[in-house]
């Protein structure tokens, strides 16, 4: 099953009630799968074929406000186009789930610049590695987003082409089990005119006693995702027998290593092969796959930093003039630690550039060299 089919299948399993999307490569086939599933009445849902991504985001916002379970999906330019209403979905605390099939700002090929650029919109941002993880993560995203402690939209990002259009074996969970594990979303009764109420949703006129309060509440709710996401990962494993690390990160061959490489998305899979090879050769290098960029696994990295001599951060996006977001976020996370590992920044896979096993070996070697000399000669490397 290709990644995009896994995403559409997750919608079916989650019994999404209203989906809306606009085609863009490499997300396009999700819109086609959903249209087919709708035409074939595979389950009872509404699919709104809109005239642009801005509208798809606003359609799911409206339907989610009424209490329907909603789904949308897009890529690169489409995501940028829906930036404005993404912010209102976030501020509205609406549990929308969106698949972001990564496509670079520059060109059609995948990198993480699309979703990274949306970090201010007030969503949870997850990055996943393979088609099974796409399906499983979308299901988990609903359970986290709709949790009364959270009520925050979640974007599940996965790389275009290598994942969207590439077939891999995917185990489809049993519908009855999913139904039991993921009960229907609950509407907010205040939005219905059943009693006289002048409740206003989604319009900020200011005038609150303290206009910072909505920002703080929103921020705190997103931080809370960490705990709920971990609970959901545990219950997912109990029900379906699969898990992805502790939800926030997935350490791979991290026993007794001096160096960790941080990578996200499909290239984390490539890194796994590189780590296996390097460890066979006696190099003490492991992988920490980063799954949740927002909220960021602060505690996890602080703990790991105590055991590591160096961390190599592979950023598949760059804020021009500012740098790699994961590298910068990691460094601020480690600032307060008494003992800080060395950190190295690697720019890789931008604009869809292929990242090979031997690239990760180079990253590992360079980082080991820094450990040996106790010094980072060259902090930034373009792989």
């Amino acid at each position, binding site marked *: 099953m290709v990644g995009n089919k896994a995403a559409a299948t997750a919608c079916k399993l989650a019994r999404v009630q209203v989906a809306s999307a606009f085609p863009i490569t490499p997300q396009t086939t999700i819109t086609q799968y959903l249209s087919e599933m709708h035409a074939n009445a595979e389950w009872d849902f509404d699919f709104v074929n809109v005239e642009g991504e801005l*509208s798809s985001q606003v*359609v799911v916002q409206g339907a989610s*406000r*009424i209490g329907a379970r*909603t789904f949308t999906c897009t890529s690169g330019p489409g995501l940028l186009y829906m930036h404005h*209403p993404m912010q209102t979905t976030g501020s509205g605390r609406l549990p929308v789930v969106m698949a972001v099939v990564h496509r670079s700002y520059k060109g059609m090929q995948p990198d993480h610049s699309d979703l990274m650029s949306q970090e201010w919109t007030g969503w949870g941002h997850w990055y996943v590695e393979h088609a099974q993880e796409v399906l499983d993560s979308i299901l988990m995203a609903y359970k986290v987003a709709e949790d009364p402690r959270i009520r925050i939209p979640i974007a599940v990002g996965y790389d275009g082409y290598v994942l969207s259009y590439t077939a891999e074996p995917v185990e489809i969970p049993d519908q009855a089990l999913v139904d039991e594990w993921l009960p229907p979303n609950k*509407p907010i009764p205040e939005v219905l005119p059943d009693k006289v109420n*002048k409740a206003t949703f989604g*319009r900020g006129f200011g005038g609150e006693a303290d206009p910072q309060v909505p920002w703080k509440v929103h921020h705190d709710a997103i931080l809370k995702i960490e705990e709920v996401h971990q609970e959901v990962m545990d219950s997912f494993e109990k029900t379906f027998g699969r898990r992805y690390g502790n939800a926030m990160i997935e350490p791979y061959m991290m026993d007794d290593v001096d160096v960790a490489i941080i990578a996200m998305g499909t290239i984390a899979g490539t890194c796994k092969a590189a780590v296996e090879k390097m460890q066979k050769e006696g190099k003490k290098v492991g992988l920490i796959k980063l799954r949740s960029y927002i909220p960021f696994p602060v505690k996890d990295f602080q703990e790991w930093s105590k055991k590591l001599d160096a961390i190599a951060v592979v950023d598949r996006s760059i804020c021009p003039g500012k740098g790699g977001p994961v590298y910068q976020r990691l460094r601020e996370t480690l600032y307060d630690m008494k003992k800080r590992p060395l950190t190295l920044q690697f720019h890789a896979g931008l604009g869809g550039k292929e990242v090979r096993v031997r690239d990760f070996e180079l990253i590992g070697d360079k980082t080991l060299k820094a450990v040996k000399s106790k010094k980072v000669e060259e902090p930034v490397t373009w792989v």
Partner: protein
Amino acid sequence: MSERITRAQIPMEEMGITPGSACQGCGAALAARLAFKALGPNVIRHGVPCCPDTVTKTPQIGTVFEGGGALLTGTSRGLKAIGREDVLAVGFFGDGGTYDIGFQGLSAAAERNENILVITKDNEAYMNTGNQRSGATPKYATTSTNPVGPKSRGKEQPKKNIPFIFAAHYVPYVATASVAFPEDLIAKVNYAKTITGFRIIIIQSPCPVGWRFEPEKTIEIARAGVQAGIWPLFEIQNGHDFKLNYKPKELKPVTEYLKPQARFRHMTEAEIAEVQEDTTSKWQSLIQSDEMGKVLI
């Protein structure tokens, strides 16, 4: 088509809660008051940025300025999903939210024939941000972005014919209304409530601040606009059936509408004559359509 009502049939119960943030003599506040009276309690009101901030007894949902059509779509589909199709999703938007920045989403919602009702209060400019031109601003009107000067006679282009543009989407119901004709306005909302699919009612809503007239003249000016044929009252069903709701034997001269508004004060006799000629010729075709009972789109 709507059925005539008498003044006594206008519902007594107010759905609007005053005061909102409206200025004195605000036509749009009056449009909201009348429309929501007719709509009654079983609606969810949708807003996008615009003025004034009328508060209704019904819940209100808002979104980005450009998102009105998609938000109504989402609500209406959501209501269907939770089995509450009895509740009507109503938009109350400005001309900017309808003619301009909101047009794409509304046009798409019209084309999909979403089950929604859009009410546009047309004050012919972006009043909330201080009277900048919109696609609804008529020719020669001055706005804060169409000042008069050696290179400018006010707005250069005619007002977009938005009712006909929506009618050309072949939607179930398009109507124009005016705050000076409350029975007609309410009759149209009443009718819109009885049908399903995409419905839009565009209400002429004079703005004393932007159009520059004394606040007590709102109704007078609105009425003069209708009586001069500048704001004809009509209904179009399915992009085909047409009815003109107000047909005086003779139109009043456009000067009765233009003269009291300082936004037109700079107009020359020749410019006024041009508006008169244009209005008369458009009126002729409306009369013809009314006689045939249909529009040719």
